[in-house]
């Protein structure tokens, strides 16, 4: 098992690093195509040639693009993601102040959404065709079809403006007790759960059904195993691979794809930081964020792969 798993792992990581490099080149190239640079964006309407020139020198934009890229890459390899060109603060510090917030939001959402989604998905697979399955499945389709900004806005109007139960903004600055934590996170987590629970549920249902229709399950049924045993001990281990992939895909979305939820609740997460970076043409910041999202995505997907490798007896016992 070890040799194969290690070889697979090694390949995975090498590929991941290669993708990271490719992403950094693409991000750098695409952002170079955007109209205007950081100096122009910061001065906006006030841009005069002299002010622009002074600001460009201050931001280090007078250096040609490819050279800037190589310098940045060199810095990254030594563990220094550089200095933000608009704020002159270290990028590590900017990201460091936002990343914990994003991770916290992602963790809380995952904590609620994964068990709920898996339970619902497996249950509706077991009782497929039943009333429960039909209600759960159509509700999931309905929820996944509603854009999250609508869900979030409606929730704000109802729970914050009308009923005044929850704050309209999600503040992480003043949290001192568990109650405050729950209050602050209730609405963002709920609106994110709406999106990813439905996705994960649909995909795990499909994965389990796929297994339940396989010939070996018929064998299991013929030997007289109970329904619970049939699903938990026989079908589920074989469905772990696709389920882990579904979970990983949904969770990777929580890191960078939550910009709308961050905007509506004014949550100081990393997605907003990156969008700010793009609008201000702050290349070092944008690249560092892109690397981070890409790395997060690769880690999750690799982790899902490992899960399915380890869960697969044919690979494990060879």
């Amino acid at each position, binding site marked *: 098992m070890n040799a194969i798993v290690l070889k697979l792992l090694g390949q995975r990581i090498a590929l991941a690093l290669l993708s990271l490099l490719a992403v950094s080149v693409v991000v750098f190239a695409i952002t170079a195509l*955007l*109209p*205007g640079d950081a100096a*122009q*964006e*910061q*001065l*906006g*309407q*006030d*841009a*005069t*040639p*002299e*002010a622009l*020139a*002074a*600001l460009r020198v*201050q931001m280090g934009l007078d250096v040609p693009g490819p050279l800037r890229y190589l310098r940045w890459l060199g810095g990254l390899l030594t563990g220094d993601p550089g200095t*933000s060109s*608009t*704020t002159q*603060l270290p990028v590590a510090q*900017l990201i460091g*102040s936002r990343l914990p917030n994003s991770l916290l939001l992602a963790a809380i959402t995952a904590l609620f959404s994964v068990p709920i989604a898996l339970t619902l998905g497996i249950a509706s697979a077991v009782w497929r065709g039943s009333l429960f399955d039909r209600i759960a499945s159509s509700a999931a389709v309905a929820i996944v079809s509603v854009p999250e900004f609508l869900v979030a*806005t409606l929730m*704000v*109007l109802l729970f*914050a*403006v009308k009923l*005044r139960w929850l*704050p*309209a*903004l999600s503040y992480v*600055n003043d949290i001192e007790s568990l109650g405050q934590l729950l209050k602050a996170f209730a609405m963002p987590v709920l609106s994110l759960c709406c999106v990813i629970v439905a996705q994960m549920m649909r995909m795990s249902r499909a994965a389990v059904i796929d297994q339940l229709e396989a010939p070996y399950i018929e064998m299991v049924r013929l030997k007289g195993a109970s329904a619970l045993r049939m699903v938990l001990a026989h079908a589920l281990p074989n469905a772990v691979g696709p389920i882990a992939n579904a979970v990983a895909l949904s969770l990777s979305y929580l890191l960078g794809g939550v910009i709308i939820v961050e*905007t*509506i*609740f*004014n949550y*100081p997460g990393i997605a*907003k*930081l990156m969008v*700010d*970076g793009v*609008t*201000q043409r*702050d290349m070092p*910041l944008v690249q560092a964020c892109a690397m981070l999202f890409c790395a997060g995505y690769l880690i999750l997907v690799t982790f899902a792969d490992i899960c399915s490798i380890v869960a697969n007896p044919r690979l494990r016992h060879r």
Partner: protein
Amino acid sequence: MTERHPIPNFVGSHDSERLMGALKRGATRRDILSMLLAGGMQAGLAGGLASTVMSAHAQTPRRGGRIKVAGATAAATDTLDPAKQSNQTDYSRCNMLYNGLTSLDGSLTPQPALAESFTTSDAKTWVFKLRPGVTFHDGKALAPADVVYSVMRHKDPATASKAKVLADQITSVTASGPAEVTVVLAAPNADLPVILGTFHFHIVKEGTTDFATGIGTGPYKLKEFKPGVRSLVVRNEAYWKPGKPYLDEIEFVGIGDESARVNALLSGGMDLVGSVNPRSVERVKGTPGFAIFTTQSGQYSDLIMRKDVGPGANPDFALAMKHLFDREQMKKAIALDHAVVANDQPIDPTNRFYFAGLPQRPFDADKAKFHLQKSGVTGKVPVVTSPAALYSVEMALVMQQTAQRIGLDLDVKRMPADGYWSNHWLNSPVGFGNVNPRPSADVLLTQFFQSDAAWNESRWKNPKFDQLLLASRAETDLAKRKQMYADMQTMIHQEAGIGIPLFLASIDGHTSKLKGMSPIPLGGLMGYAFAENVWLDA
């Protein structure tokens, strides 16, 4: 929106002054009642009146309390460096921490601030006497060297100051006494005290290069500053304005999304929010306990018709377009009445140099048609618009409708806000721009209408205008200056390739408990100087 509760007429003004005076000395409701009864008033009436007097008294500022305020932007570029302030969130924050030598009041007239007085004989050499007893947040006394440093740093290109163009007219700033600085200009400018009252010329400590501590002389001290997230300020007990500020603490954040901002206000999460869309006004007004604060200012979105290229090269085309503005409809349908009709003159009615005598240019399709035919312009005319220039898309669409009636085909091109100022504004033959309120008529005309100005949007060149501009800048006689500005406004109204349909208002929303707001036409939130002026009603 300063609501006053006048004491009913049946008490003479002398009496009401007497009552208010008694209240200020600490009279109770019972004292007031007995005063009124002693004057022969019947008990029921006196009771009602005493309540009115008490509530009017509640309008005097109350000390204490904490408010949460949301501006319209938040980004990692948020700054505490006065020279780098770039948006209303920066202005609001820096106004909490710093003061200028002067400050601008409701008519943008400079008032003494850190300078106790300012004098000049020729508008070229200015003497500013510094206020005694002013200290920075760290206890250091304000000295002339601080002023010299704070003003002169704008001239250094390395500072990358937003006010460099304004500072370049200053030749020298010197300490001419223990509490006095002398400013010498390259050319006379009667508006120097106005310029020094603007945000970028806030006074910092001599030699400051790292502004993270936000040490100034302002009404609040910095407690926490996280760019893009929030700032927290607490009352400066040693503030030089007696009794001010009123609040203990202000938490200031930026919320980029307008509906999130309004929701935050209405859910009780915020006490004051800036930049409310006219479309949200009814929602705020309709919720008990909340109010709207409108500031009419010199902000405008203008139609630019370049005089050097494109159809605008023909003066009749510009006149045709100016007659095509259905200003009343734009005011009603686009700005939802949060605007005043403008007259293609860039100085707005709140300004002391506004020329009211200029006849209003009406919406007149026949005249527009006449001028269009005279200009000989035919075919599609592209009009470049963008959400970056407030309401420009809507204005262009309204014009497109009216233009069809006279056989003019306007091709409205909607550009993204991102990159609009660097790529389209000033480059398109016909397009829209947006001009934020400027502190003085001189600054506005110099930046946007002088022949060689970098932002001469329509490339309108008139040597006579330039002469008048220079002369008015040096003129210290207010009446003569007014006349010169009237002449310049008339010239722009008639000749420039600039059509200004409306002057736009800034709208803020706040809880009814928040008192003390009065408009300063530099922008919303009391010209961003709300912090030291507002208080919370109990």
